[in-house]
């Protein structure tokens, strides 16, 4: 068995009296899509935030490529090559597509204008953004300077996924990428996700949508009461089994993945 690209051991996070993560483990193998499912309040979001640096766990360790990492901010995880697409998308609606793609990692002009006056290299950023969007087939963009708020939900999700795919070298985390989308738009985003996986970047997919999870995922991490209940392979179980596990209606026999 190869080593996991991203793993977590014994993560603990409490919010006041609520224990969101209770000695939770997690493993992501290279090149796979690992779905994380669980009931509302099971601690999925907190787990994801702990992996992406948005939350600092009180106990436990996170390993990337076998090396211990300590993320104290989302930028730490990003610098390490972990990109997250949050459910809220984390985009500034009034700013343009290019501005949003480069938020927090802007490219400056070479030479004097960039170094002394810190001028941004707009052209480079726009070209890069256009390139990445067309790589993922999100094209016919005529205006990369369009404000994000003028895009539809699916287009915004597309831009957010393109941003993650453009910069995520190790892992991409997608939080409910299809929750706010219509059926057709969801399909397009699912294809986008497969495109990204086919480029060899492993993906963590958080979703409530069982058909989407079972269609895309290589393995499914079932989260219950702040910890990993089991990891299953979608071909071995039915969707109702998975729902039964995550709601506690049924107990898994053994850790079998």
């Amino acid at each position, binding site marked *: 068995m190869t080593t996991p690209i991203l793993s977590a051991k014994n993560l603990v996070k409490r919010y006041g009296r609520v224990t969101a993560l209770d000695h939770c483990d997690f493993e992501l193998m290279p090149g796979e899509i690992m779905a994380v499912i669980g009931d509302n309040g099971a601690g999925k979001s907190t787990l994801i935030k702990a992996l992406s640096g948005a939350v600092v766990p009180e106990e436990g360790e996170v390993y990337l490529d076998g090396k211990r990492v300590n993320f104290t901010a989302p930028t730490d995880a990003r610098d390490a090559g972990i990109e997250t697409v949050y459910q*809220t998308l984390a985009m500034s*609606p009034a700013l343009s597509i290019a501005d*949003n793609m480069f938020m927090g990692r802007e490219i400056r002009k070479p030479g004097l204008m960039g170094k002394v006056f810190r001028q941004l290299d707009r052209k480079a950023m726009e070209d890069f953004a256009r390139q990445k969007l067309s790589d993922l087939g999100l094209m016919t963009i*005529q*205006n990369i300077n369009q404000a994000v708020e003028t895009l539809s939900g*699916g287009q915004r999700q597309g831009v957010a996924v393109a941003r993650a795919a453009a910069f995520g070298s190790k892992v991409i985390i997608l939080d409910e990428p299809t929750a706010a989308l219509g059926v057709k738009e969801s399909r*397009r985003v699912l294809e986008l996700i497969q495109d990204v996986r086919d480029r060899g970047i492993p993906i963590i997919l958080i979703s409530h949508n069982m058909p989407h999870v079972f269609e895309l995922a290589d393995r499914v991490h079932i989260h219950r009461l702040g910890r990993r209940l089991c990891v299953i392979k979608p071909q071995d179980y*039915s969707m109702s089994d998975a729902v039964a596990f995550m709601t506690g209606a049924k107990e898994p026999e053994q850790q079998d993945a």
Partner: protein
Amino acid sequence: MSKSDSYEDIVKTRREENFAEFQDEHHGIMHRFQHTLHVTPALVPLIVLVLSIVIFGALLGSRFFSPFALTLILQQVQIVGIVAAAQSLIILTAGIDLSVGAITVISSVIMGQMTFRYGIPPAISVVIGLAFGTLCGALNGLLISRMKLPPFIVTLGTWQIILATNYLYSRNETIRAQDIEANAPLLQFMGTKFQLGGAVFTFGVVFMIVLMLLMAWVLRHTAWGRHVYAVGDDPEAAQLSGVNVKATIMSVYMIAGLICAFAGWALIGRLGSVSPTSAYEANIESITAVVIGGISLFGGRGSILGALFGALIVGVFTLGLRLLGADAQWTYFFIGVLIIAAVAVDQWIRKVSA
């Protein structure tokens, strides 16, 4: 996957492929106009400014439409204009600063008192004044970014605190213009006049225009500028995309404090004297300029040049109505109408229908 699960199969095969096309579609002239305004928010105040100059010019002829009168407006709005640059930065982050006028006046008082009470060379006094303004801004920034207090409350408090400190420290004394002229002309530097044809400019006016252009460039072409917009738009999203929200807010309030201190220096040039009772209305006037300039009070939208146009619109109305011989209250009346109209236009522009 069982048969009942594959209800989405139909859309896997039969769907239109046009979901992620980004086309600039325009429906009719109103939509196009709205889109243009959405992209260039300073356009509305610019149109209003040009229209008001044309209308007053038509009514008053060469009394108004002369280089002298038009540059007089610039001189009259320079303090508010400079302070409006500071206010714009803060309102772009979805904050508000009620203490700008107080910072302006206390900075000018400190520049004067350092020179005349302690005999410090004027150049150093000016630097001390600028540093003090920055410090006041830093106090606001600290309370807002670290302690998470609402900007309105923080600056409502610091406004009173700074203004009271100003009166206590200056003992409510004015430093006379003749004394400054004789002993420390550097303090009046911003008031230095020069002529171009019939137009009269002061260094304060030049400073206001250069500052506005500089800030417009910085906001548009540096990462920091983009971060200011992102923080005002959605601080959560900005944080998650890797913007240091606290540092951005802190820096905005500090720079605003520094700009207000420069306004304090310009204030000495404008008045000639150092008066602790001047410029106390600059907070409301700067907010007026910013709002008329089309910068959204909800943050993240608008152009700083709009605030310059906003300040100029107020100046044009003030001078124009005075030359027409109207009661000064009409000025306030029209400014009130303009404020409400500006916010209504802002709401309309923000309605971006798909």
